[in-house]
């Protein structure tokens, strides 16, 4: 073990953010630290770097790095270790690079601060850039971060972390901000570096897929605890902890067969304040009994009183895609083109896209960031001017009278990507949900409260929440409100722009199921935008693949994913 964390506890503003974590990684080994947002992954990593934010401190345990306890070192001693023996790569590649210094300078700095001469450092900077596979490195060192692509920036960060050939490399969600295709590149890079230098790598992620692809060992974190750890393979194939299992089930993976409803982990991730003394998962665990809540389970590879005996991953209701009901398309879009900006700075975000959406059916749109998905979605709702024809129930947005537009809006609704931005912070949930009724005058005022109640039931939220404000709700709950708002006018089609990307893995499934139910029971048609292939495959009857504003391939989901034709689709699926 080059790095060994023992019984680490981290106290964040009086709350136990991390509680009794044990980790170890050997030279040349890649450890995957998996867990949902807020489970304590980043803090653990930061504590290893001795870089915990203000108000947060390690309250217990030890972090051994070749014999020394990092927690006992002084700041200056730690500084010696940082970047020299232990390197770190952060999540958002742009934010973590200084926009005002050239990439070369920033790389060189990593060396100079540890005693390298300027000249040598400058030369090495180019080498490093080349090492991480940035084309014609020698020239690019003079460029500024914003001149690099997302993937390249991430490579720069990695190069920076590797500058002094550290013995341990910590990577906190190194690929989360990147597109699938780019992700793959970064992961192989990490692997390669490990092979070449023999560094121990700790990859922090919330994506089981990554564990599967690159990790030798893995540890699953939940509510500040390590609930399960061991060799990646076994952990993925035969999870013993219910949470691990739940996590694996609730995430549809390309490999697995689609199902009608995803198995979900009920409830929401734990709140630090009210975490039971015992197993943090017990409140959401179907196997839990009193003991679980009271006494922390012993840790022997998995921390659970009732470990799963054998894998239950297979247990999924078999799924026969519902007969595509013969229904008239409500949305008809024919070679839609959207252009932002004027003249010189014009950006054609969507180029000649056609699609139709009918009640009871799901059209999936996938594509990397910037490929025009959201733009298309907004065009479909007549939110921005588009060339080509977009008709809703036979009427075109262009030249529709106010009254007509109102009618059209009753037919199509939208669910937005970020539940934090899509609710007006100043309006109570009641006001937000009441708005559709007010503007459409759907029912007499006195009936509205009852309707709202029904809506809340539909999206599975307690009625009292009507009087809360957005900031009093969790992400998942907000997104349910977003769905409820779109349901209010009883639309025939809902356009959902990455409705779950901003949500925790275990919550995603809940929202997806909600949409699935609406489709199958109410018969709403859904245009489902995502960049997670698994979701789309699992969820959609038909799938469109967008690339740089164009639809490069389309077809029934099962066909498209089994036998992709367009090269881009191929790489996409290969990468995932």
């Amino acid at each position, binding site marked *: 073990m080059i790095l060994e964390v023992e019984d680490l506890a981290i106290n964040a503003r009086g709350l136990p953010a991390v509680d009794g974590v044990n980790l170890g990684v050997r030279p040349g080994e890649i450890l995957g630290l998996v867990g949902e947002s807020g489970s304590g992954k980043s803090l653990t990593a930061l504590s290893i770097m001795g870089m915990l934010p203000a108000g947060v401190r390690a309250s217990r345990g030890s972090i051994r790095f070749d014999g020394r306890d990092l927690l006992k070192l002084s700041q200056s001693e730690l500084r010696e270790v940082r970047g020299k023996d232990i390197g770190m790569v952060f999540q958002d590649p742009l934010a973590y690079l200084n926009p005002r210094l050239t990439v070369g300078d920033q790389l060189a700095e990593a060396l100079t601060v540890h005693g390298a001469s300027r000249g040598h450092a400058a030369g090495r900077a180019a080498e490093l850039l080349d090492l991480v596979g940035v084309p014609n490195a020698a020239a690019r060192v003079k460029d500024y971060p914003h001149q690099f692509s997302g993937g390249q920036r991430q490579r720069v960060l990695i190069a920076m972390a590797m500058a002094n050939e550290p013995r341990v490399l910590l990577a906190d969600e190194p690929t989360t901000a990147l597109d699938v295709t780019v992700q793959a590149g970064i992961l192989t890079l990490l692997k390669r570096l490990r092979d070449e230098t023999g560094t121990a790598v700790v990859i922090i992620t919330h994506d089981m897929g990554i564990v599967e692809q690159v990790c030798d060992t893995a540890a699953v974190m939940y509510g500040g605890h390590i609930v399960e750890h061991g060799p990646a393979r076994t952990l993925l194939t035969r999870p013993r902890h219910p949470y691990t299992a739940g996590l694996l089930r609730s995430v549809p993976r390309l490999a697995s067969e689609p199902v009608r409803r995803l198995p979900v982990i009920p409830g929401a991730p734990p709140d630090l304040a009210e975490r039971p003394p015992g197993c943090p998962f017990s409140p959401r665990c179907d196997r839990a009994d009193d003991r679980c809540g009271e006494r922390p389970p012993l840790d022997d590879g998995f921390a659970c009183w009732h470990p799963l005996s054998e894998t239950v991953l297979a247990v999924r209701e078999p799924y026969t895609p519902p007969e595509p009901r013969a229904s008239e398309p409500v949305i008809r879009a024919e070679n839609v083109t959207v252009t932002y900006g004027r003249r010189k700075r014009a950006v054609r975000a969507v180029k000649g896209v056609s699609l139709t959406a009918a009640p009871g059916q799901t059209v999936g749109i996938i594509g990397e960031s910037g490929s025009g998905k959201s733009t298309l979605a*907004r065009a479909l*709702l007549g*939110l921005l001017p588009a060339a080509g024809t977009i008709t809703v129930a036979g009427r075109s947005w262009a030249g529709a009278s*106010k009254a007509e*537009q*109102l009618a059209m*809006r*009753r037919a*199509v*609704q*939208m669910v*937005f*990507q*970020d539940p*934090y*931005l*899509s*609710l*007006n*912070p*100043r*309006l109570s949930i009641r006001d937000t949900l009441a*708005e*559709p009724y007010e*503007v*459409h005058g759907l029912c007499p005022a006195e009936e509205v409260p009852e309707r709202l109640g029904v809506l809340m039931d539909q999206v599975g939220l307690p009625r009292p929440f009507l009087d809360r*404000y*957005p*900031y009093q709700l969790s992400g998942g709950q907000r997104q349910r409100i*977003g769905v409820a*708002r*779109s349901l*209010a*006018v009883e639309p025939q089609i809902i356009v959902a722009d990455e409705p779950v990307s901003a949500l925790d893995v275990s919550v995603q499934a809940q929202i997806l199921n909600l949409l699935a139910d609406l489709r199958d029971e109410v018969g709403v048609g859904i245009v489902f935008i995502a960049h997670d292939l698994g979701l789309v495959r699992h969820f959609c009857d038909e799938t469109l693949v967008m690339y740089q504003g164009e639809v490069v391939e389309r077809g029934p989901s099962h066909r498209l994913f089994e036998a992709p034709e367009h090269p881009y689709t191929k790489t996409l699926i290969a990468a995932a």
Partner: protein
Amino acid sequence: MTAIPADRKWIRAGRSTKGLAGVILITLLVLAAVAGPLLLGVSPYEQGADALAGPSGAHLLGTDEVGRDLLARTLYGIRSDLLICLVAVPLAALLGTGLGLLGGLTRWGGEVIQRVFDVLLGFHGVILGMAIALVISPGFVAVVTAIVLITVPSFGRQARAALLQQLSREYVLAATTVGASKARVLGRHVLPNVTDSVTALFAVAMANAVKIEGGLSLIGLGIQPPEPSLGTMISAGSRYIQVAPQYALVPVLLLAALVLGLTLLSDAINRERLRS
């Protein structure tokens, strides 16, 4: 990330030590201005033979150059300064926000209004004030007008920025998708959040208003005698700084206190805005 409704912000602002200090200062001054004269019961206009007399039982702060009671005048002075603030700043806020929004909503309008703001900013406060005071003869109206014109651009720009930011917010789109009319979207979703960021400017604007009033008085274009105002008293009093220091210094301190109070308050409010 999670935005807090404005009202809470103000309350929170009040809670921080700085904010509290500001609130207290202002409250005291307002009390002095409102209750002071009543308690004192001396007319600020009553002239007398003994000019520039030092503090005495009859005149706690002494008298000015024509034998009027300084304390009374100072208290009334605060009153008129507060009045100026309360009239001018909201006016400026309304006008500025209005123009700012117009600028944000209409393309050509935006251009023109930006230019107008640039011109207004081009004139230095003092000069603009002077010109205005001359055009409409000096006095309350002139001072208010000057302050309004000087303050409008800052409100305008703030409002415009806030508006543009709001328009790109997803909940604004969401409102449109559920079929809310443009007017409704603006009135219900955009404006409230805009006002929110505009109100944050209030305290600063008021502080400046007080300063401008004083600056105009300095060149004799402020509030006109016999009406007292802190500014006029400072400019008149600084003439007697050596024989009757209290004449200028007391208003100076009060004016400073007023500005200080407002500055502290605005600091606190802004801090709250950043936090949320």
